[in-house]
């Protein structure tokens, strides 16, 4: 549905987007992830035709954005980072204007009503946009993107500025939209992307550093089997006992927590659960476990690892 090929965008010497390629299939929800200033918004602006890339092509459902801008743009609903709202208009007037601007062929009144119901702004349609709260403004922006039921939806950080309840609502809405539309969604919140998206593209310093399904990404993270334990008792005794448990690959003292309490990182062989064995072994020795938790990298840590890896950021310039 959406195909991005080798796009590069230069601002002077700085490459904001450096040779990015990816494709999104029909009905897929793609999460676009990256730290602030990574080039997410720039890429989205290029896909929607607001900016032009220095090189590379973007194809929306067979229409190239530069050769057939009208055809391509009519297939996209876009919610930019800052919703493009006219503060001096009422919600109803604004949506009518956007409806006309997009040259939508559906029944105007019914369609606007339907979209308002979908994003839950029916109660504020006659209020001036400037008097709305941030959450409502964001939703009006989303309503604007949904006008005309475009096959492709591009949402730049759609849940920023919303309260937790609204965030869940919007996430569910985007998820349900993903059944009929192709959605590209940007965010810097990992759990959000994990909850909504089928696939994740992570970019850093203008380059793609990962392009995987959400499951694949999580799997890649939990391949090692590391545990963090705090045990009370003599360090050498605990160490030798832990090392003697079968399936334990390595044990390392992390730090001294307090008097005669140490923290250890225990790495087990793959697909082995050593927790009960460890418990009984240490219980026999009367060295109680005070804390036991997984020491695997969280999504956040992997994200940080990917986006701060020096091999990738060498060329990208400064943020």
């Amino acid at each position: 549905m959406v195909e991005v090929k080798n796009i590069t965008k230069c601002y002077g010497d700085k490459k904001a987007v450096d040779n990015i390629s990816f494709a999104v299939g029909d009905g897929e929800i793609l999460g676009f992830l990256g730290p602030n200033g990574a080039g997410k918004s720039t890429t989205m602006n290029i896909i929607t035709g607001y900016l032009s890339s220095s090189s590379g092509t973007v194809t929306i459902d067979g229409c190239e954005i530069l050769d057939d801008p009208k055809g391509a743009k009519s297939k996209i609903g876009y919610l930019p980072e800052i919703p493009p709202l006219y503060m001096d208009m009422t919600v109803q007037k604004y949506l009518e204007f956007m409806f006309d601007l997009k040259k939508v062929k559906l029944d105007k009144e019914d369609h606007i009503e339907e979209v308002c119901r979908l994003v839950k702004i029916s109660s504020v349609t006659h209020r001036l946009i400037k008097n709305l709260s941030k959450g409502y403004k964001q939703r009006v922006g989303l309503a604007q993107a949904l006008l005309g039921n475009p096959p492709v939806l591009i949402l730049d950080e759609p849940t920023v500025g919303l309260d937790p309840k609204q965030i869940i609502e919007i996430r569910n809405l985007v998820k349900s939209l993903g059944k009929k539309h192709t959605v590209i969604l940007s965010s810097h919140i990992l759990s959000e992307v994990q909850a909504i998206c089928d696939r994740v593209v992570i970019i850093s310093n203008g380059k793609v550093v990962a392009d995987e399904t959400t499951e694949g990404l999580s799997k890649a993270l939990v391949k090692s089997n590391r545990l963090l334990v705090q045990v009370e008792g003599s360090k050498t005794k605990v160490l030798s006992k832990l090392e003697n448990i079968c399936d334990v690959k390595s044990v390392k003292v992390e730090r001294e927590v307090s008097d005669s309490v140490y923290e250890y990182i225990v790495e087990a062989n793959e697909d082995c659960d050593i927790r009960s064995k460890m418990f009984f072994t240490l219980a026999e020795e009367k060295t109680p476990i005070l804390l036991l938790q997984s020491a695997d990298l969280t999504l956040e840590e992997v994200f940080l690892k990917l986006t701060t890896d020096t091999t990738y950021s060498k060329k990208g310039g400064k943020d």
Partner: protein
Amino acid sequence: MSAIIKRELYSYFCSPVAYVVMAIFLFFSGLFFSIVCLSGDTSNLTYVFNNMFLVIVLLTPIMCMKLLSDEKRLRTDQALLTSPVSILGIVMGKFLSACILYLVCLAIYVIFGFVLSFFVTPHWSVILCNFFGLFILGCALIAIDMFLSSLTESQMIAAITGFAVGLLIYLLDNVASAIPVEFIANAVKNMSFLSHYQNFTVGLLSIADLVFFLTVIALFVFLTVRVIEKKRWS
């Protein structure tokens, strides 16, 4: 394009801008009309139209200052530029909406004509020519001010540069006479809006004047499109 015209007119008439512009325009039109025609016992509207030149020069920047600068500042240009409308369509929509507001202001001259017709049979063709001259002069200035508005994100800067350019246009004849090199002086003189406009006010409809103003409109609409286009590429 029609959607943009509709929105701009909505924005003009839902804010004080349209009313302030119309009030100022009507006040000075009425003032000149009563001083020249009613007190001066004449049906000759030439002086009225002549005096309106400066008023128009100072009013059009107010009408145009937020046309494109505000779109950039509020990021609403993202909605316009990612919708299936060409940039020319956007610019023409903006331009025509300002022209329509201006035309609404000009409607007062129809009333002046009727007032005169109670006392004397007015030269309708001359009045029509005046009317048309004032309209096309205003449109040319709107195109220039719209271009200035596309260069900045601040309404204030758009308005101030609009005033400055307007005054320069107003003084162009004086500037021309101060230039010692004859062919440059002639060239500048031929660019004078005032002298082209004055032909209309005496009831002279010449192709040269018409072409002059239409060229100015086309040039600045084109330049505005280029400015917006350039932003996408840089």
